[in-house]
């Protein structure tokens, strides 16, 4: 598939307004402003565009749910990109910022919002500088602000810098953070579409989701659906990292198989090594084994295989990776990032990490392995937000597929996986 969203990212000036205008820039917005907001929502529904932030929820439907009787309404663009293994929005914002602005404006027009807040993670400050400089140009040329393109439509775009919290990516936590509070989720319902930012109707959309809008407006719903398998239309950015030769972001159809993404797009496994396990959708989703990769990388197919496409962050591990170590690494992340609002996640994550640490250090007992499963299962489905399930997953999925490795750690009192890059020394560090 010819790239659509990242077609020009390698051009040196792809991020500038001039370049963007020469390549159909803001044409989608012009066309959209000539349409009725409701027709845009119907068009997006017909395109079947699914949210690219992780859940894969249909965007048109989300917009339809936005309460159109309450003023003002908001778009909150989720540019928090903090799911480990995910780095697609980074490229889009750094190399194609006007596409995001155009998507935000179309979204605002569709749901009748006058402001779009782009919540960008604090660590992306170099990206934020690009966004701010380009946004100023868009304002100066009348593509944002008052009376956009002379149509009388007023819409502001505000860039809001986060300050380092994974949980701020969860939609209600993002709203709390925008309101100047701790990034801790709210109890749903009410959903943000009814009571979101400042208690007003809000649509929270991922960067890549919004970037898909201009091409949908220009080329139509049928074109969009034809690009992928049924219900998984459109272009998709895949992030491949880990033990591959050419890690990177690749734009492809969701018809592409996971194997093609890893072996063709990302160049395959490092020389002399072989594939051991793949996390297909960011660190929060279950592992797939090498024989499970001949499936289209679509939301539905990956789910059928027992995992999730999530944020399409594909983390590849070769045979030198100790799975106990990998689970421990991720559980440190989850215990560190838990917002602490609900007990199963806050306490359970901490315990999972402690137990994984003692197994990894060769100090575990056999019953610790079942204890991991028991704690994990007591977190899943019992928390306020999806973080809980995500935190339990690395422990549950590694025990499920690599139990023998856990047992070997306990029996031998050490790691038995041969590895060149994981030196014999224990990692230094706070953990």
């Amino acid at each position: 598939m010819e790239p659509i969203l990242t077609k020009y990212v390698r051009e040196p000036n792809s991020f500038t307004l001039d370049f963007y205008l020469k390549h159909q820039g803001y044409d989608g917005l012009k066309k959209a402003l000539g349409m009725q907001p409701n027709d845009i929502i119907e068009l997006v529904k017909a395109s079947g565009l699914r949210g690219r932030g992780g859940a894969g929820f249909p965007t048109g439907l989300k917009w339809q749910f936005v309460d159109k009787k309450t003023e003002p309404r908001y778009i909150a663009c989720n540019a928090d990109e903090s799911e480990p293994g995910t780095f697609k929005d980074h490229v889009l914002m750094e190399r194609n910022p006007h596409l995001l602005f155009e998507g935000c404006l179309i979204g605002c027009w569709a749901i009748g919002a006058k402001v779009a807040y782009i919540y960008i993670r604090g660590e992306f400050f170099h990206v934020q500088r690009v966004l701010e400089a380009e946004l100023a140009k868009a304002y100066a040329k009348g593509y944002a602000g008052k009376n956009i393109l002379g149509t009388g439509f007023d819409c502001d775009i505000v860039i809001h810098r986060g300050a380092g919290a994974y949980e701020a990516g969860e939609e209600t936590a993002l709203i709390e953070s925008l309101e100047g509070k701790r990034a801790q989720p709210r109890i749903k319902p009410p959903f943000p579409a009814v009571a979101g930012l400042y208690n007003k109707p809000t649509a929270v959309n991922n960067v890549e989701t919004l970037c898909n809008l201009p091409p949908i407006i220009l080329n139509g719903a049928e074109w969009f659906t034809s690009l992928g398998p049924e219900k998984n239309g459109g272009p998709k950015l895949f992030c491949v990292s880990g033990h591959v030769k050419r890690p990177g972001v690749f734009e492809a159809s969701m018809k592409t198989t996971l194997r093609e993404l890893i072996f063709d797009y990302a160049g395959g496994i490092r020389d002399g090594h072989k594939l051991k396990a793949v996390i297909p959708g960011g660190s929060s989703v279950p592992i797939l084994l090498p024989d499970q990769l001949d499936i289209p990388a679509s939301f539905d197919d990956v789910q059928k295989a027992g995992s999730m496409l999530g944020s399409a962050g594909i983390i590849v591990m070769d045979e030198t990776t100790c799975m106990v170590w990998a689970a421990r690494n991720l559980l440190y992340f989850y215990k560190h990032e838990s917002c602490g609002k609900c007990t199963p996640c806050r306490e359970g994550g901490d315990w999972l990490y402690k137990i994984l640490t003692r197994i990894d250090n060769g100090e575990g007992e056999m019953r610790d392995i079942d204890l991991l499963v028991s704690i994990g299962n007591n977190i899943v489905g019992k928390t306020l937000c999806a973080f809980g399930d995500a935190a339990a997953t690395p422990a549950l999925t590694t025990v499920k597929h690599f139990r023998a490795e856990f047992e070997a750690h306990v029996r031998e009192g050490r790691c038995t996986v041969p590895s060149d890059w994981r030196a014999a020394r224990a990692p230094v560090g706070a953990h």
Partner: protein
Amino acid sequence: MSFHPLMVYDSERFQKSERARLDEGKPFEFTRERRAILDDMLTKYPPEQKRSAVLGALYLVQEQEGYLTASGMRHVAGILGMTAAEVEDVATYYVMFFRERVGKYVLQVCRTLSCALAGAERVTEALSEKLGIKPGETDPSGMFTLLEFECLGACDRAPIVMVNNEHWHEQATAESCSKLVDEIKARGPAALSGCHLEVE
């Protein structure tokens, strides 16, 4: 008569909060330029929602003082119409805010899975050895602080070392980091620019 044991309200056992005390710092007021930046930021949110600018305001305090002081937070609270406790509540949640004095250069090594698969643990070790400090510590000269950070959202360029919350040093190795430290010592902030890789 009372069955209650006699309570000894001495300061040894009681009124001892577990809460970490914030450093009071110097008396704080924003410089005129920073105050202008904050005022501009406030125009971006509804007038009754000044609180939305708290993260931005805290970044400005950090820029001015090097870390968040209690007096800086009270100043922010006053401007945004929040209580000091509310500001502290926010400040203590986010990892990019430093609540104690840090080195002039804060080296933040990403430690999450993709970076770890690419050898981030070795990078941390090398920096730790080079600077003679453990992660979380500041070297005696007050020049460097070493921290471990979570996934920075660019795992294709793993491992990454971020400096001072913004300058990225990508595809780091033990050697390149050791060089970076030497460069910073020799050239100061000039050593930081230009480490950001272009898209290949």
